[in-house]
């Protein structure tokens, strides 16, 4: 089953997004990562890499990040697991993208590219 790693500058935001998405995501693995090494607001590449390794069951990992540096650190983490774990970054809003990805990943036969596509469809979601 494709796993999802949620990367936010705030650990609590990542956990909260996981909680919201998990309600719709059944058995999908959604792993929150966030915070800088001092426990403040920020992200680091090694923490994201660890999250990808922990979340992976061999079927691929989708990473969804919040702002600029979280995306850069996610890129370094994805490069670090290259050749070992199939991981990719979704270009999607973090909460809606994670929710969409979780619904898709809950289907056991969903591929990483299908989950990625569903996550990125969240860019088009209108609220009003």
């Amino acid at each position: 089953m494709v796993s999802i790693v949620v990367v936010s500058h705030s650990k609590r935001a990542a956990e909260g997004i996981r909680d919201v998405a998990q309600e719709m995501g059944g058995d999908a693995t959604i792993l929150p990562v966030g915070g800088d090494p001092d426990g403040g607001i920020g992200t680091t590449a090694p923490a994201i890499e660890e999250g990808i390794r922990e979340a992976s069951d061999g079927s691929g990992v989708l990473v969804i990040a919040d702002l600029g540096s979280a995306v850069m650190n996610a890129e370094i983490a994805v490069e670090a697991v290259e050749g070992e774990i199939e991981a990719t970054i979704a270009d999607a809003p973090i909460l809606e993208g994670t929710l969409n990805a979780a619904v898709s990943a809950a289907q056991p036969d969903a591929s990483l590219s299908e989950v990625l596509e569903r996550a990125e469809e969240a860019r088009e979601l209108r609220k009003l």
Partner: protein
Amino acid sequence: MSESNEQTEVVLAVLQAIADRIEAEKKHLTDLDSAIGDADHGANMHRGFQEALEQVEGMDDEEPATVVKNIGTALISEVGGAAGPLYGGSIMSASQELEEGITPETSIAFAEAYLDKLQDRGDARVGDKTMVDALVPAVHTYKKSIESDELPPLTALSKAVDAAERGVDFTVGLRASKGRASYLGWRSVGHQDPGATSTLFMLEEILDVAADHLEGEIDRDARSPTIPDEEPEDA
């Protein structure tokens, strides 16, 4: 002592000088970042360079490229924010250009590889109000001063630092279009970019240490030459 050990000694001296400078400027960098960012640049850089010092302890006998790579890895792990992947990732990636040792040619290759990786990762161009605004003029000036003007590396480096300083000044009047400052829109105008500033500090420390080891004039007040006599190769 072998040549590569001497070069490693210089790399370690540069790291120590930068770590000391960042420590001294920690509050200054954080103040700059408070105005237009998330107020963590000083603390993040300080944490990263302290970690880098620990990482390279006892590496006196390693090749210079290995030490530089380890500095990059330490910065990626500990700096956080955008500066971690930008400084750390670019240093790590460019370190392979130093595998044959540090020469004028490999130092240009390092500078260009660093700039390429930085722009690839951060997707910033000159004028976006980022560290790129200090780095691009520094790298171009360094390359041109050595390849076309045939200046000694120390003089080339001093001109590069001078170019970087003018790049830092240039960021003040710009509206940010990359990084956290871009969220502020017009409010970012009138403030100096913290990343460009820390880039300048690092270049100044490299120059300072290089001055103890290389021959050549330091020419920091010079205005950059206007039109090059000839194009550097692959420019």
